[in-house]
């Protein structure tokens, strides 16, 4: 039984942030800090990673799971020249600063795509096989649970494999790397087995709705007012547009960004055949009668 859903969107984003910032050694965001190395000395037996005293200063030895500056530059340059299909992801190349080897302004959905598609490619040949392997396993796990058709037996398998994957991460990364988000991952397959696909249980639609509402705010001192006002206005214009002749372009009949002219042909066809400046209820009836995909071209 699932009473409250773990939000896969946030879990994935935080996991990605942890992995990426640590691997790219991004200042102030990496989990592999001097404090982490001190804790590592207390908890684990990894003498190669412990802080070394040199000229009365502690030095952090280089870890196998962190890229050096040349590799970082290579990864950044690779991300810079990436191109995606329209609408697949925001323009990730804008988020990269090649000179500093930094990445910023990544949104949850960018992290989602990066986690599932790019991590195995980006870090290939950069790391030794065990570390690249474990990062790829994490990536594949998220890809598996976010699939739009999931078989129960696959989740049963994923449940066991993710535990091994996290254990392998533990073998390589320092203790400070593991916050609660790394732990919650192991409960996700169970939720999918009980509750079904993640697409119906994650926060993406709600976060998008929040942005839609947030954009309507004009007066930051009184947030709710402008939202209500703008929402009502939008509804009115929406309903009013239903009384117009269908061939007039309104917000409902707006041409989409990638238009195959299907919608416009449909409205023209409707106007020619059935409606000659007629009212809303007939549009409704006709829409009900005809599936929009089975129209003459």
């Amino acid at each position: 039984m699932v009473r409250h859903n773990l939000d896969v969107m946030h879990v994935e984003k935080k996991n990605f942030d942890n992995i990426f910032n640590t691997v790219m050694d991004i200042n102030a965001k990496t989990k592999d800090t001097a404090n982490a190395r001190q804790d590592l000395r207390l908890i684990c037996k990894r003498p190669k990673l412990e802080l070394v005293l040199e000229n009365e200063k502690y030095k952090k030895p280089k870890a196998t799971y962190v890229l050096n500056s040349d590799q970082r530059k290579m990864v950044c340059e690779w991300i810079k020249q990436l191109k995606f299909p329209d609408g697949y992801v925001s323009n990730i190349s804008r988020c990269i600063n090649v000179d500093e080897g930094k990445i910023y302004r990544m949104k949850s959905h960018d992290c989602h795509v990066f986690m599932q598609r790019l991590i195995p490619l980006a870090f290939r040949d950069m790391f030794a096989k065990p570390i690249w392997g474990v990062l790829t396993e994490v990536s594949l796990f998220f890809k598996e649970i976010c699939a739009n058709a999931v078989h129960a037996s696959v989740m049963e398998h994923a449940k066991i494999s993710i535990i091994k994957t996290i254990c392998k991460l533990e073998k390589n990364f320092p203790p400070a790397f593991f916050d609660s988000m790394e732990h919650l991952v192991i409960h996700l397959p169970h939720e999918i087995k009980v509750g079904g696909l993640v697409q119906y249980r994650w926060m993406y639609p709600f976060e998008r709705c929040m942005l839609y509402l947030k954009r309507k705010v004009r007066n930051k001192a009184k947030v709710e007012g402008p939202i209500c006002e703008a929402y009502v206005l939008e509804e009115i214009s929406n309903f009013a547009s239903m009384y117009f002749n269908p061939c007039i372009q309104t917000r409902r009949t707006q041409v989409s960004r990638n238009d195959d002219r299907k919608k416009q042909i449909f409205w023209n066809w409707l106007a020619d055949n059935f409606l000659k400046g007629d009212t809303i209820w007939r549009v409704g009836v006709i829409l009900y009668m005809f599936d929009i995909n089975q129209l003459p071209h």
Partner: protein
Amino acid sequence: MIPGPKSPGKSLDVYLQPLIDELKILWDIGINTFDAWKKQNFIMKAALMWTISDFPAYGMLSGWSTHGKFACPYCMGDIKSFTLKSGGKPCWFDCHRRFLPINHSFRCDQCFFKKSVVENSLPPQEVSGIDIINQVNQPQKVTFGLKSSKQKQPDFGKTHN
């Protein structure tokens, strides 16, 4: 409902009360509703299946805090997480070997995980629907309406946050 110092926090229940009342009516009695397709009335019943929220809201809704050592709402009190000495943050290092099969080689590994620790414990029990009903029907000692945020529930920090 905006998170921050003035957020309702544990007192979110007060705001949920009207919703719970209506849900109870919808579940027990139902409500007369018009079916536009059949053109007749029917008794609509409804149930709350689950909630979808981000983690701060998860903490408020479920009543199980998603901060600190006890952040995992599945493992609840049965945890192995600890606080880092220098980092000062809760850490889940070496909490996952117990989920492995009992004869897995990682369980005896004393080198790569916590220093010279062999993991023998079993994973926390999965809670079934009947367990949840029992939990809900027999609530433990809870003091309602804490006067300030500094006032803590009994057993705070030992079995829960």
